[in-house]
């Protein structure tokens, strides 16, 4: 197919509103872009003038799927501005809650948003007829993760207990003990998940790019760490603007970003590539079983990296619960004193590295906010992938070309509402 025009309006099974426009003439791409048409929400302006204590209520609402990560990152930025160090117990509870969010987000993505493509059905409801047990397994695993979110955070969308300083209420020890047993009982379900995704045929395509994620010397970095680029080493979170260069493009309402090259990738595959050695041993085995080799340059394999991380997060949660129980949970109270300052929080969200920056005045009122969102960071890289992919698949039928393109975009698990907390509005009239 040498000439074709693709205009996919409001690509489905992603979070938020985006369009894909591709024009090919005589086998050459004349135009290729992913339009982001999500509404602007102006989060940077919302928190201005409010107390540092209120800001996480607001920034949590950037995203329903990764509200735990937004809240965590916001809190870390404020704590850094106040010069406050949370206790080891609080950090472990935050890590446990973050693991729960990773599991629920990854399971939602791989089972409900990605898997229907492999069966050529329009939604997970279409998979029920022939693959009911698979769908139910996805639901059970997601429910289990939701339950862990609720156990630690009070609820899974817009967590309640996650506060600056410490948790407003600790989970009950008996509930943690019971939950650990549930994870252990769920291991066969996780094994079946691995088996299911091992048997799906991921499209073959490679394009090496710059991979950016947090990194830690002694663990698989999700909660904290330095910013690592596969190209050129590490940067401290406070200096994130030295690494992450945001820029605007005419066709998108979300900011794009670049680091060392003209685009980079964040998310599960970037973390897998940058921090492979710190994965749980079982997660490494699972990667091998599913044909995910380190390093991997096939962006479609981001789905598989998410399954690997799901296994990691389940196993890591067992260790965290053991640690928390062995020390016994103490009720905590944090003494916070407002003061002027600047703070940056960097956390891995399921879709990649998330940055929140805040400045406070001497009364603890917010005077500045900046939020850099994983999906925004991936947009330029998605377009570069598509530019490399499309010429290689022009011999396929149009429907197959469209499916390959949509699957590539979905593999990044884009979360467009998040990315367009600020945006440039331009309507595309095709």
């Amino acid at each position, binding site marked *: 197919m040498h000439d074709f025009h693709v205009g996919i309006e*409001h690509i*489905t*099974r*992603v*979070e*938020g*509103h985006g369009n894909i426009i591709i024009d090919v003439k005589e086998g050459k791409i004349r135009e290729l872009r992913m339009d982001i048409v999500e*509404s*602007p*929400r*102006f989060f*940077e*302006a*919302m*928190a*201005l*003038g*409010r107390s540092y204590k*209120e800001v996480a*209520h*607001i920034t949590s*609402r*950037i*995203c*329903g*799927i990764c*509200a735990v990560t937004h809240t965590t990152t916001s809190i870390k930025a404020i704590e850094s501005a106040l010069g406050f160090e949370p206790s080891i117990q609080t950090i472990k509870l935050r890590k446990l809650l973050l693991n729960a969010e990773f599991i629920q987000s990854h399971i*939602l993505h791989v089972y*409900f948003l990605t898997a*229907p493509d492999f069966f050529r059905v*329009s*939604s*997970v*409801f*279409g998979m*029920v007829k022939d693959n009911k047990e698979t*769908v*139910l397994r996805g*639901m059970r695993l*997601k*429910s289990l993760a*939701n339950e862990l979110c609720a156990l630690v955070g*009070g*609820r899974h*969308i*817009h967590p*309640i*207990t996650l*506060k600056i300083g410490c948790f*407003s*209420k600790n989970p009950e020890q008996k509930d943690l003990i019971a939950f650990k047993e549930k994870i252990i009982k769920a291991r066969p379900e996780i094994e079946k998940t691995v088996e299911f995704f091992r048997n799906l045929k991921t499209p073959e395509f490679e394009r090496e790019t710059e991979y950016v994620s947090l990194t830690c010397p002694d663990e698989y970095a999700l909660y904290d760490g330095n910013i690592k680029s596969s190209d050129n080493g590490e940067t401290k979170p406070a200096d994130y603007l030295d690494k992450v260069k945001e820029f*605007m493009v005419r066709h998108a309402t979300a900011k794009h970003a670049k680091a060392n090259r003209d685009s980079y990738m964040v998310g599960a595959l970037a973390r897998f590539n940058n921090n492979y050695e710190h994965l749980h041993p079982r997660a490494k085995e699972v990667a091998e079983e599913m044909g995910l080799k380190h390093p991997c340059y096939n962006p479609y394999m981001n789905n598989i990296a998410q399954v690997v991380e799901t296994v990691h997060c389940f196993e890591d949660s067992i260790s965290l619960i053991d640690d928390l129980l062995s020390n016994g949970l103490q009720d905590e109270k944090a003494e916070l004193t407002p003061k002027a300052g600047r703070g940056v929080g960097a956390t891995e969200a399921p879709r990649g590295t998330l940055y929140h920056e805040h400045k406070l005045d001497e009364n603890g009122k917010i005077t500045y906010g900046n939020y850099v969102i994983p999906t925004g960071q991936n947009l330029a890289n998605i377009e570069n992938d598509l530019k490399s992919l499309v010429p290689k698949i022009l011999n396929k039928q149009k429907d197959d070309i469209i499916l390959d393109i949509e699957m590539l975009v979905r593999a990044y698990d884009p979360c467009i*509402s*998040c990315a367009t907390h*600020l*945006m*440039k*509005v*331009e*309507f595309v009239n095709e």
Partner: protein
Amino acid sequence: MTKPRVAFFSFSSCEGCQLVVLTIEEQLLELVKLIDIVSFREAMSEKSDEYDIAFVEGSITRTSEIERLKTIRETAKTVIALGACATIGGINCLKNQFEMNKVKDIVYGEMADNYDTIPARPIEAVIKVDYRIQGCPIDKDEFIEVTKAILIGKKPRIPDYPVCVECQMKENVCLFEKGMVCLGPVTRAGCKAICPTYNDGCVGCRGLIDDPNLSSHKNLLSEHGLTVDEAISQYMMFGGNSKEKYK
């Protein structure tokens, strides 16, 4: 009997309320036996422009959204506002404290002129709404109850008593007694007092009850160290569509 055709739409929001709908999980499979979901972009590829019941999430923040919302109203027999952004404006309205040009300037600087945004408003400021499911996010049990009632043609029962009633039923110690502040006394119940139960003050995400005693509540807040402006600022966090009603 033909199944009612149900569509989900989202405007400016985090899409968290639609996500709550997806978390009803196994019950969702039961629910789809009773209805045809014809549009749910977050979860499926198929879409249709014919539907009987529309669930609408998000606030209206752009001129173009007004027309889209009116079309939904003209098409659907029943429109249900889903969550705080749609029912009371939600946190989107926090930007309304500034002139829109100022908001654009804060975020975009010299590129401000390229952006279209209008003061955020709940969908009811634009169209007639038949039912409201409150909260940020919505409560999944309330979603199921309201949906069931609509499907069998009954009026859903929405609480018109404050969060305090549910909080007391849970035998929680009142947060004011712990020296904290809480919007529970004036906020519509239905959330099972989830925030106070987890030792965090109610932030009013479900909006005011029909006849709130605001002056008495403001006195209570001032006894706990808040100025009148700070008290109003608390009400405005989620219910910021109209400052006048809090005075």
